[in-house]
């Protein structure tokens, strides 16, 4: 016994000594880089290769997790959606909501050694509205932007043409990632970005191999993380590689065999498998914006009749359908606003409709679709109750095509509606939309502010108002919500909006809330999600080893 204890003690001492040596070595290794931060590297497999690394040209939600490695925004978001200082330490808004005065951090430098100051923020804003640069941002997010004025080296005054509740939201978005004005002029390919278009972020992009990977190394000078980050100072990781692996099964295999440490985009079919593996952690985060929904086109029969819209909605047992397609991993949606936008989500709509085939059949009988043809589909005046949905292939993700087939079977079986979901190329879809040759369209929007999504879908003549629904009162409510910055008041208005479109008008069938999944192996910590958008955070707080 005694001998054994002795050995144990010895082993213990040796282990301790070894540990000490290791930490000592790690300290000296990272000592040169300052901050005493831990070193290490990490490989993160992602589904999508970004079209651009220029944050001002950003447009893919799937690429959002890369942006803040390289670029910092002026404003950060807290977990309840509140605005926090980042590169801007404080800001004042004039009473009329037209003037924003920003105080900026004085200790920030870009990766190319340029100083960050008010002039660089102005250069960024001016670049965004430059003709032919980013028409979408200039026309939508910055439509109210008038001018920016440098009042002293670290104070910037921004003037708007009209009050805009979404302006601060814009300044916290990837578009507002601050780019070195020098590199805006010298970058070889400005719109594509890359190693020569630099920001102030915790990592420096130093290598991009198209079709393979993008590699970042730590920015040792970084000392301006937002207050809600888990730490301050330089990032923990010395380097990080994002590898592009579009095939989901390959990403999962690469993770379970330890060839990558983190993967993004875990398909529902693999979620169960990964959850069973105790060495792998899976985290899911609901995306902000609008829920994935089927919107009804009310410009022509059959959905010009509200009873038919309600019937379609009641004919589907959404829970069963989602379970069969996503094996219990999808979050059911109840409103046009998803649960990923809790600031505006109206939970009182839950369980107010749906899964009532009896009522659906009654409504359809009343609406005149009482006869059935040989195949069991309802007919009226010799025309079958057909619902066409024309989707463009690149936008079909999350097995939405399979989901459509499940809905197709459900509405056929329960009420005799002939639902025809088609996946086509973009040109064909555009033509179908122009010619109004569809009865239903599928959509979800990943905007950080759900209001931005509603503004695109609901008002008369809005960019994706494909329901052709018009309601002056609703438009007024939406406009009001966009100009007020009082969060409680906005929530109240958006609750009204949701009640109008979901309950009163039955304009859509909300299905599920899009979500991001991240899975990572043992020893990886600090994987978090952006509080408002629900997409994975940058690698700033991530570390490996214990």
């Amino acid at each position: 016994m005694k001998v054994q204890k002795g050995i144990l003690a010895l082993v213990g001492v040796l282990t301790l000594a070894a540990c000490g040596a290791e930490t000592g070595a790690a300290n000296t290794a990272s000592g040169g880089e300052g901050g005493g931060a831990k070193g290490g590297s990490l490989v993160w497999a992602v589904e999508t290769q970004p079209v651009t690394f220029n944050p001002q040209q950003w447009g893919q939600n799937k690429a959002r997790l890369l942006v803040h490695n390289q670029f910092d925004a002026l404003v950060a978001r807290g977990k309840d959606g509140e605005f926090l200082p980042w590169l801007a330490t404080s800001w004042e808004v004039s009473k009329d909501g037209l003037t924003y005065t920003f105080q900026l951090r004085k200790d920030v430098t870009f990766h190319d050694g340029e100083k960050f100051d008010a002039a660089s923020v102005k250069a960024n804003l001016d670049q965004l509205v430059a003709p032919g640069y980013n028409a979408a941002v200039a026309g939508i997010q910055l439509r109210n932007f008038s001018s920016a004025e440098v009042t002293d080296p670290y104070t910037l005054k921004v003037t708007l043409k009209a009050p805009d509740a979404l302006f601060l939201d814009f300044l916290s978005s990837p578009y507002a990632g601050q780019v070195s004005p020098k590199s805006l002029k010298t970058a070889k390919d400005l719109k594509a970005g890359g190693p020569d278009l630099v920001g102030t972020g915790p990592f420096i992009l130093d290598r991009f191999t198209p079709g393979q990977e993008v590699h970042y190394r730590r920015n040792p000078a970084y000392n301006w993380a937002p207050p809600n980050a888990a730490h301050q100072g330089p990032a923990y990781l010395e380097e990080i590689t994002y590898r592009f692996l579009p095939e989901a099964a390959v990403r999962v295999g690469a993770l379970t065999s330890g060839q990558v440490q983190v993967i993004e985009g875990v398909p529902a079919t693999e979620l169960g498998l990964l959850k069973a593996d105790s060495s792998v952690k899976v985290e899911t985060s609901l995306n902000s914006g609008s829920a994935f929904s089927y919107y009804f086109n009310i410009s022509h029969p059959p959905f010009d009749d509200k009873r038919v819209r309600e019937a379609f909605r009641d004919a589907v047992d959404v829970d069963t359908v989602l379970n069969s397609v996503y094996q219990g991993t999808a979050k059911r949606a109840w409103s046009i606003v998803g649960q990923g936008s809790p600031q505006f989500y109206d939970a009182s709509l839950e369980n107010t409709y749906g899964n009532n085939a009896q009522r659906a059949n009654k409504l359809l009988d009343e609406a005149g679709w009482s006869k059935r043809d040989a195949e069991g589909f309802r007919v009226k005046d010799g025309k079958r109750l057909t619902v066409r949905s024309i989707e463009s292939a690149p936008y079909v993700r999350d097995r939405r095509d399979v989901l459509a087939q499940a809905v197709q079977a459900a509405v056929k079986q329960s009420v005799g509606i002939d639902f025809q979901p088609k996946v086509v190329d973009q040109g064909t879809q555009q033509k179908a939309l122009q010619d109004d040759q569809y009865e239903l369209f599928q959509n979800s929007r990943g905007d950080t502010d759900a209001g931005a999504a509603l503004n695109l879908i609901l008002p008369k003549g809005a960019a994706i108002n494909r329901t052709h629904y018009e309601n002056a009162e609703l438009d007024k409510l939406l406009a009001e919500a966009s100009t007020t910055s009082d969060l409680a008041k906005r929530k109240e208005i958006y609750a009204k909006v949701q009640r109008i479109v979901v309950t009163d008008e039955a304009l859509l069938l909300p299905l599920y809330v899009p979500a991001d999944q991240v899975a990572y192996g043992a020893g990886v910590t600090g994987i978090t999600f952006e509080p408002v958008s629900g997409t994975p955070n940058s690698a700033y707080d991530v570390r490996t080893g214990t």
Partner: protein
Amino acid sequence: MSTLTLTRRRGLAAAGWIGPVVRRLGAGLVVLWVAATAAYVALLLVPGDTVDVLIADGVDTPQRRAQIITEWGLDRPIPHQYGDYLLRLLHGDLGRSYVLQRDVAEILSSQIWPTVRLALTAAAFGVVIALVLALTTAGRRSWTTGLAGFSELTAASIPPFLAGLLLLAVFSFTLGWFPVSGDRGFASLVLPALALGLQIAGALGQVLREGLERALEEPFAVTARSRGITEWRLVARHALRHALLPAVTLTGWFVGVLLGGAIVVEAVFGRPGLGQITLGAVTGKDMPVVMAVIMFAAAIYVTVSTLVDLAYLAIDPRLRRSR
């Protein structure tokens, strides 16, 4: 034989070459022209406005639209536009991708080497595996022949996508011998090249073995055997030459397999290359890139089949006169 007759013979031989060579080069150019025209017709036939089609998901501004209209001459009659398009192609101008904001030629040339490397390695794997299988099993009429035949059939029938996933599952995820992805040295090339080369190995192996077996039944084989030659020498030295001819004919098909399969294999293994560019261009509806890829594939086909045809001429002098 005098020097004069020798020279004349050489002259005649050269003359015999010129006709077929010119004919084949001409035919190649016609194929390229047809491919260019087909790509152009496809652009016109895609539903939607041609400017919309060309711009796809690129930045859409009035200035950009005006620029595209001038670049493609869309404000002029279609025959005129088509003429301009051919003229630009002749100058080697493949146009500009409005999605990626770069010249198409630059995009293709930056991604061509990883694909060429993958295709050549896959071809080498395919040929070596086929040769080994055929040489070791041909004419043996034993269970090994049956097994080889069966595995060739399997290899030829498995699509590269599935082959890639299976190879990854075994050799990367389970055994950990090879990395899963990327373009980092030879180790990362083995699995993708195998996934791509297996189909070639299967089909080529079948053709080779059939050729070998047919050759082994010919009278010259009997003669050779009567000289006391070993069976191995007979197969490797004599029968193989006969069996190679039909196999060479397959080269054209095999280039197609390599080009098409590269798209899938590059995506599965996360490798850079033309396949990724093509996939991205097709899903992103980047028509200028898609059209350039069509032209590129046609050019490869034409080059390879012209070379193969010319190789026949070199191998078999009879063909120079008969065609």
